[in-house]
């Protein structure tokens, strides 16, 4: 089984090529899928290889075009619809909630809707109130939708392929700060990662950190620094937020007795809220301290570089909070090397926007 190091965006691109090769029923459309930038490279080469009837740009009509995807899916195709920013996809809620999510149940299990919706979200670079929303919890609230947020290139590839060939509608969420991340990827053409399994990516005994999407990257950094200070953190990459893999989550927390849920979304009614409430119900007797959430403040994200200072949380905030939960004391100075060194609004100084 050959593997290769590539970026998250390249992993997605490889999955698209392989899936479109595996089945003529797979089509790919969205604003810009065939333009020179090819959705951050994720759709590069598709139109050249598979033709403009299967890979096409579309009118600026999010709701109508999602409905078209539902119709195409119930008539035998496996559409992959792409949105460069989640915020625009809010125009498509009728088709997502009333059509895609309901069709299979509502018509007595006669017709499934094999549809994949790729949504990109992010933070920073002045994306501001309407270009940076992390609304994964909305989608997870709708029965009938599968919702995944892979964090590694390998999971991005394997879970996108699994989403495309899943009979249900899948909301596939990519964080913009992950597209450049590198990792080893399984090159097999039929490589599928499950859509309902979390993954323990670091074993530890003192606390369970449950992270999703880009926060997995930050949690890894935090765990390394925590280890140097005698705290052994277990990290679970949630990967799927609907359905959540409660077995993996509860097994870990029953052992560690502590929970920190790290989210990219706003706090109230978030995925991290769901984890804390379910764990409080299921593992109350195992908990050594109150479970915590680390999520965004309940406020619109401002645009100004000056105003977003201190808004985002990362490895430093995670490590500081974990230290307090495990050792019960202030530890700020122990983790100061994790603080953002330089610009707080980019994943690295190489990032020059505009998105």
């Amino acid at each position, binding site marked *: 089984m050959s593997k290769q190091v590539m970026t998250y965006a390249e992993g997605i691109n490889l999955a698209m090529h392989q899936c479109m090769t595996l089945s003529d029923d797979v089509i790919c459309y969205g604003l810009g899928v065939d333009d020179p930038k090819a959705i951050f490279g994720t759709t590069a080469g598709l139109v050249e290889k598979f033709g403009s009837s299967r890979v096409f740009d579309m009118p600026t009509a999010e709701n109508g075009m999602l*409905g078209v995807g539902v119709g195409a899916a*119930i008539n035998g*195709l496996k559409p992959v619809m792409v949105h460069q920013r989640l915020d625009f996809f809010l125009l498509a809620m009728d088709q997502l909630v009333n059509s895609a999510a309901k069709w299979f149940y509502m018509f*007595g299990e006669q*017709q499934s809707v094999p549809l994949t919706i790729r949504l990109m979200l992010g933070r920073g670079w002045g994306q501001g109130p309407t270009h940076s929303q992390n609304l994964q919890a909305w989608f997870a609230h709708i029965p009938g939708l599968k919702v995944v947020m892979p964090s590694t290139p390998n999971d991005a590839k394997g879970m996108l392929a699994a989403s495309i060939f899943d*009979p*249900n509608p899948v909301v596939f969420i990519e964080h913009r700060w992950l597209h450049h991340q590198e990792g080893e990827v399984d090159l097999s053409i039929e490589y599928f990662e499950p859509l309902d399994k979390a993954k323990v990516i670091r074993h530890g005994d003192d606390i369970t950190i449950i992270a999703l999407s880009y926060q997995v990257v930050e949690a890894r950094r935090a765990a390394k620094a925590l280890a140097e200070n005698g705290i052994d953190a277990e990290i679970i990459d949630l990967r799927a937020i609907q359905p959540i893999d409660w077995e993996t989550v509860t097994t870990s927390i029953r052992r560690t007795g502590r929970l920190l849920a790290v989210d990219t979304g706003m706090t109230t009614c978030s995925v991290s809220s769901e984890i804390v409430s379910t764990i409080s119900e299921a593992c109350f007797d195992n908990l050594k301290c109150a479970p915590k959430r680390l999520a965004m403040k309940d406020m619109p994200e401002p645009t100004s570089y000056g105003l977003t200072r201190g808004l985002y949380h990362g490895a430093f905030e995670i490590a500081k909070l974990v230290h307090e939960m495990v050792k019960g004391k202030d530890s700020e100075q122990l983790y100061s090397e994790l603080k953002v060194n330089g610009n707080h609004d980019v994943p690295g100084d190489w990032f020059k926007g505009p998105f």
Partner: protein
Amino acid sequence: MNTQLSSLDYLAIYKMMQLIRQTELGIAERYPKGQMRCPTHLSVGQECTPAVLSKLLTHQDLAVSTHRSHAHYLAKGGDLNAMLAEIYGKETGCSKGRGGSMHLIDQSVGFKGSTAIVGNTIPIGVGLALAKKIKQEQGIAVVFLGDGATEEGVFYESANFAAVQSLPVLFVCENNLYSVYSSLDVRQPKGRGIAELSSSLGLASFTADGNNVLSSHTALSSAILHIKQGKGPALVELSTYRWLEHCGPHYDNDIGYRTEQEFLAWKDRDPISCFESELLFSVLATQTQLEEIQIQVQKQVKSAFTFAEQSPFPDYKVQDQNVFARSGL
């Protein structure tokens, strides 16, 4: 009357009109008993358009529809027993009781589903047509919609895309003048017809008297021919009138949003009695033939109600199962 239609075609259209009318009146009669426990939108007065389409479409053609879809489902060939059982919430219903009156489906005849949100199935019908084009399948997609749905943004979005991609889709717009209690006058500018609007969006557009079989047939068959010749999507606007309240079994001319006089004027243009007169006048059918059809339909409808009433409810213990599909269907 029309060289494209044989005497048998006329009788088939008549029978379909009777089937729709008697089914809807049968629901209206029984609804107050409280056994059909879901919002139900009847098509009494609007039988002509679906009945004409029942002669023009085959099972290769796929259709989607709206909250008021009983007539469309039946005209596409949908199973009557399964429809009534669905409205009664029974296991034998076409959606196994999960959907009710507003969520009908009969895939065996190409009726791909009706849904409750105004305009919701318009893009879905366009998607059916897109898949047909990509897979090079025979047949067209048919989208049933009302006048209110043309006010939704998604109508514009869908018509636009259908025109851009030249998709084989027919929009059948039954204009019954009211969106619930809101008349067309307060919803759309005077002097701008729906067909005119759709024509400017790039759809080949036709208008017809939706209570008249010949007028409807001429417009719908022209539109279908246009699509089958590969010339792109089309819309037909058919004027008609619903006799009963928006949702439910009663007449509601007394509550003040429309007048008894207006209703009576439309009732004079009852599509069924007008068609009967034309058939008898043109000697295409005898009174006896028409009565025989009525009796056949009466028996069919009565037996379907018995089937629905006697069918079991689904088991509530499995109410939360099958939210997700395990394998593709």
